[in-house]
């Protein structure tokens, strides 16, 4: 049907014909070297100033990283994260006018085992990265994706965050830090002029988990290599593979941060990357968590906060900066390298956004601005951290539990039920009651047993292999889609399966003891 039922009248800014050999718009003197996203031509020098300033401005504006805090830089070797590393070096260097004051470390996740790289290729890449990391003088951690098979169950628990710092404490902490530095006559990074609050948090953290990855089995034991291969072979679509990889990578980073005493993690997502991520996450059903997935800070893990300081740079700015100022980076083939356009939802979205951006230069910045206006459905309250049900895999608030009946989630369940073997009389049952059974039977793991057996023929998606243990009820809408694309869940790393079992036992226990418990509501009723 005709779709022009809403008023879309503002014309989109079409690409303009490039002009040749402009002067720099900033200093009006230098010869322009590149055009940045606003369509402005910059010379080399002004571009550098602009680029360097933007990084500090982003951190300054958000006031999340405290002086002396230990920050883990997630570096993939690619252009954006390598550029981020260079900006941190620049900002911490002695002569920088507005100095950064945190203590950095680097983490690299070697995903070669999931992307079909040979051992030699992986070792080559790691050797090259080690040289790059060593040159910075920062501590670095090389973690292999295979190590997910050694992760403890605690990764999947969001730790309640450190008490909120009062307003103005950032300024005080900075002043304190500067004063301490003056007394000591030195302010080189890594010497640990710790803000007491940070120190406390880190002492707590180091007790949190005693299992250290480095002390466990050798990272790439043959056993785990096979485990990882089996895991990725059990995922049927590239869309789900990419999603799984992202989830596991995130778990490894957070675990490393916790065990090594880092309280912040910096990710190198550029605004081009985030625009693609936002649109592909919408397509993957992750609308409820867009804000945490694409915002400046991501507090879903509680104690370790993810920040994205590169989110104001376009991939073009980054590529030009790296090229002009000799920032090293290496291209490491990933899951979707050389893949056809429609190989996965993520890949398709990237092609789409890049194509649209070529025709309409404001595409990326418009999508990116959309992300700034979004908020998580339920803003996380640090005190209620424990009580909000969270997705087993992505740790975002569940968007499936109290779904309204008139919703896409519910409608899909209805469709599934109506497409399966139907018991003749079920057709006559009133709509309200059948809707209820559907909701319970297919979305809650605990109710499943009773619900299904009483109705005889499987009402829970019979076209799927039955999963043991049932993960579905513990997952958000989008992670369910990923698991649905797997042939089975037996190959998942043990910490995920164990945590699922633990959660099921807990809710089972809660159910069993519920009749003996007086909850608050009943207390009130009794009192009145």
């Amino acid at each position: 049907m005709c779709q022009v039922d809403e008023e879309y009248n503002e014309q989109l800014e079409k690409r303009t014909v490039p002009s040749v050999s402009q002067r720099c718009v900033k200093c009006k003197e230098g010869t322009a070297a590149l055009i940045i996203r606003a369509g402005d031509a910059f010379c080399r020098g002004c571009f550098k100033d602009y680029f360097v300033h933007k990084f500090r401005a982003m951190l300054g504006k958000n006031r999340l990283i405290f002086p002396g805090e230990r920050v883990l830089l997630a570096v993939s070797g690619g252009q954006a994260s390598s550029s981020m590393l260079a900006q941190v070096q620049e900002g911490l260097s002695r002569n920088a006018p507005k100095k950064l004051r945190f203590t950095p470390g680097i983490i690299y996740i070697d995903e070669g085992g999931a992307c079909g790289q040979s051992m030699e290729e992986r070792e080559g890449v790691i050797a090259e990265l080690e040289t790059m990391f060593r040159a910075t003088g920062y501590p670095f951690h090389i973690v292999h994706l295979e190590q997910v098979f050694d992760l403890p169950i605690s990764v999947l628990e969001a730790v309640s965050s450190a008490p909120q710092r009062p307003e103005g404490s950032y300024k005080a902490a900075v002043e304190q830090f500067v004063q301490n530095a003056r007394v000591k006559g030195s302010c080189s990074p890594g010497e640990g002029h710790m803000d007491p609050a940070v120190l406390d948090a880190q002492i707590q953290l180091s007790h949190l988990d005693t299992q250290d990855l480095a002390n466990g089995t050798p990272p790439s034991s043959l056993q785990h290599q096979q485990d990882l291969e089996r895991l990725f072979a059990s995922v049927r679509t590239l869309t789900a593979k990419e999603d799984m990889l992202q989830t596991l990578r995130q778990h490894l980073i957070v675990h490393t941060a916790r065990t090594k005493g880092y309280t912040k993690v910096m990710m190198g997502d550029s605004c081009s990357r985030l625009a693609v991520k936002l649109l592909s996450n919408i397509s993957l059903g992750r609308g409820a968590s867009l804000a945490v997935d694409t915002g400046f800070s991501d507090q879903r893990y509680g104690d370790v906060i993810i920040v994205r300081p590169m989110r104001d740079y376009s991939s073009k700015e980054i590529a030009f900066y790296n090229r002009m100022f000799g920032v090293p980076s290496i291209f490491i083939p990933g899951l979707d390298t050389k893949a056809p356009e429609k190989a996965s939802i993520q890949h398709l979205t990237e092609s789409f956004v890049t194509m649209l951006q070529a025709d309409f230069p404001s595409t990326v910045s418009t999508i990116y601005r959309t992300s700034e206006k979004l908020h998580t459905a339920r803003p996380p309250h640090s005190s209620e951290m424990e009580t909000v049900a969270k997705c087993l895999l992505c740790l975002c608030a569940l968007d499936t539990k109290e779904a309204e009946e008139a919703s896409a989630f519910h409608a899909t369940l209805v469709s599934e039920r109506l497409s399966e073997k139907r018991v003749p009389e079920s057709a006559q049952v009133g709509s309200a009651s059948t809707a209820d059974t559907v909701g319970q039977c297919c979305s809650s793991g605990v109710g499943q047993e009773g619900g299904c057996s009483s109705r005889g023929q499987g009402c829970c998606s019979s076209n799927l292999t039955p999963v043991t243990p049932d993960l579905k009820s513990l997952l958000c809408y989008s992670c369910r889609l990923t698991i649905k694309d797997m042939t089975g869940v037996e190959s998942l790393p043990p910490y995920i399966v164990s945590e699922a079992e633990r959660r099921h036992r807990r809710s089972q226990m809660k159910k069993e003891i519920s009749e003996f418990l007086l909850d608050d509501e009943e207390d009130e009723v009794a009192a009145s």
Partner: protein
Amino acid sequence: MPILCSSCGQKRAVLKRPKTGHSLCKECFFWAFEEEVHQTIVSAHLFNPGETVGIGASGGKDSTVLAHVLKVLNERYNYGLKLLLLSVDEGITGYRDDSLETVKRNQQQYELPLKIVSYEELYGWTMDAIVKQVGLKNNCTFCGVFRRQALDRGAMMLNVDKICTGHNADDVAETVLMNVLRGDIARLRRCTAISTASEGEGVVPRCKPLKYAYEKEIVLYAYFKKLDYFSTECIYSPNAYRGYARAFLKDLESVRPSAIMDVIHSGENLSVREGVRMPVQGNCTRCGYISSQALCKSCVLLEGLNRGLPRLGIGKHHRLHGKILAQEPLTQEEERKLKAIDF
């Protein structure tokens, strides 16, 4: 060996459902499709017994299937609704003439009353005449804005309680993507609502009973039921930017068929940061229709057409609203800017 229906297990399956991946026979598909629309109507409380419901009928597949299914369900479940068809004649020669014939046949086939409201009688302009003045580039803006009000005015003439339209899951998902691409946060928030609230005078509440029905299934339903519908696209070019969103959604669907529902789920679960300004809805001071400005879009567009300044409604010229209301002439400079048909 043919694939058997996953529901009855006896008959040969005729289609694979994109939403769930099940294979169904014709009979089970009809049943499931109708039941799903019923579930949508019941769970979203779209109608109350005794209400008069106007079905926006264009003669296309969506509204034809909607009219058919609503008639079936109204009888099967005793909704107690008084259904009627509501059509808009935009005045597009060669497109509307034929599709209105289809609607008239539908009226006979479904034995539902039909009311046709024309742009000509409502606004004094047919789309053909508008295209003559504004050219082919922005005519869809006029058509869309005028149609919205035309349905409302037609509904009020007939004392209709609710209007329902044939928007399907693909349309809703496409609109979500479109609003993300345009950074239109206000529409992004509204566009997944299944019905509009009945607030404000001069506006009849609207709903989309086919919101969760895939376009593919609507076409198949119409095809297997041999429904009479008109399938030519509008002869005036459609919105180019929406074309991108549509093509992208089709690609998404081919990668993962549930993607259409997944996009809608995303849209339903978005929430907007506090402090982001939302336009305040008021009423048009001229015609009383809902509007966030002093004059509604329709009145501004109409004024532009009547003054021979079609650009008046295209782009932002809010500061001119006062002059229009006071029936004052514009300055030469203002007129010069609005006259050029270079859009």
